[in-house]
């Protein structure tokens, strides 16, 4: 049986981890590779590097990061942020990335998913969706792009279905309402998407304590759970999280 995954996510700018990282015993806490190796030791199932600058000038730095990661990491990793074309994605895959995630560019031109999945396989293409609850509309969420700054009017569940139909291998679903709140995942959103698609859904946004991870899987029906700051700040270790999940009856790799 496939294990449910726990995924630390690192925001990277100019090849460095941004947002405070509060790990002791790391020579260089700003080095994404060294941080990823630490998470590997803690039993992370994969890691995501999110390039938050993602302008064309910084692309070479990110390709270099992917290249170093393929040499030095012994677990799968995904690179996200700023891919606009199949050529952008090809450079990252050629550098050794196992997966890439697409977001705004895929909303602008959904055929990017189709072309990328055809070229590199569905398993290599994640569709990242930033979703925000539509006030007063019950179970309805809207897709936002450009780092959550721009509303699109697109329904998040319908977009997830289209992405899956076009060949995305996974949905990385971030609740903008919960992101940074520490109130836990938006399980209603996660469950709505998980039930609507037949590809894995990664729940993201809102984790603040141990119990939230298991809730994302049990109540949100997610296949994987993602967090950033609770791991970076050393509040929780991946191992603690997985031990708790296992105690709740969730299959995890420990």
């Amino acid at each position, binding site marked *: 049986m*496939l294990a449910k*995954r726990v995924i630390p996510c690192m925001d990277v700018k100019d090849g460095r981890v941004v947002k405070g990282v509060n790990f002791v015993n790391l020579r260089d806490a700003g080095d994404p590779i060294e941080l990823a190796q630490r998470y*590997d030791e803690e039993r992370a199932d994969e890691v995501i590097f999110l390039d938050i600058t993602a302008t064309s000038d910084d692309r070479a730095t990110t390709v270099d990061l992917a290249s170093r990661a*393929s040499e030095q990491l*012994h677990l799968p990793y995904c690179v996200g942020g700023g891919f606009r074309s199949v050529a952008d994605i090809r450079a990252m895959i*050629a550098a050794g990335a*196992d997966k890439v995630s697409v977001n705004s560019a895929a909303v602008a031109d959904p055929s990017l998913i189709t072309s990328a999945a055809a070229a590199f396989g*569905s*398993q290599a293409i994640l569709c990242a969706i930033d979703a925000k609850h539509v006030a007063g509309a019950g179970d309805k969420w809207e897709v936002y792009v450009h780092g959550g700054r721009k509303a699109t009017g697109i329904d998040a569940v319908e977009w997830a279905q289209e992405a899956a139909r076009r060949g995305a*291998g996974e949905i990385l679903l971030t609740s903008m309402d919960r992101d940074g709140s520490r109130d836990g995942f938006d399980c209603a959103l996660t469950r709505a998407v998980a039930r609507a698609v037949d590809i894995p859904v990664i729940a993201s946004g809102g984790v603040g304590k141990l119990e939230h991870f298991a809730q994302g899987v049990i109540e949100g029906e997610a296949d994987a759970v993602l967090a950033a700051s609770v791991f970076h700040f050393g509040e929780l270790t991946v191992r603690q999280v997985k031990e708790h999940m296992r105690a709740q009856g969730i299959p995890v790799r420990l």
Partner: protein
Amino acid sequence: MIAIVDYHKGNLKSVERGLAAAGGDVLVTDDAAAIAHADAVVLPGVGAFADAAATMQALGQAGVVRERIAAGVPFLGICLGMHLMFEEGVEGAPQEDDEASTHNACGLAVLPGVVAKMPKVDQKGLSYKVPHVGWNTVQLQSGSEGIGGLHQASSARAGQSCGLSERAGLSERLEAVEPLADGQKSSPLFDGIPSGTYFYFTHGFVAPSGPFVVGETTHSVTFPSAVQYGDVAFGVQFHPEKSSDAGARLLRNFVSIVKGA
């Protein structure tokens, strides 16, 4: 020296670094002559069956790799590299859904049968996500007992010692291996690795079953996740180079086998 066969389909750095970290002296090469002189051969897993098999034929690698395996040189096929050990594969062929198609691509025919699509529905009608991507467990086989119910190539020809190999351009299939040991010994590739250990998988096609299976994994079907030909030729469906410390241990075991051979 361990030759990592480069058939021009993708990035091999993870495999190269994984084997080097395991203590191996490695060389990534597409040169058939270099492969012919290597102490061991690793066939990595990138791309699709038909495409990779065609490139291996064009570069003269296929015959050399097969000769090295037949000569008893240690071998490790990873993911697609394991698939290529078999006689035929449907992946990338014109009729992917038909195992019995005469349009299947030809593999190295070290092991019998056809590599086929992983079903999306199990015997009870439950749906599964395919490709099978993520961490799953490998149940080690102690001998050839208890592998009933595995994926069997449905082709009436699959597993027979005639026909398929000739279509692969080979005069004969390699001599059939004896089922492993006496029901006690497990594969040396998994030395120190308990049955039920998690490894990282990413694939949509599965190998056929037979007495060569040393490990199996269950998704929509139970399928061979580790196979062995003779004493020192192995194939694994998962990616040891992406499987953290369990994968590192397996690669160290392989390097030990190479050094002891």
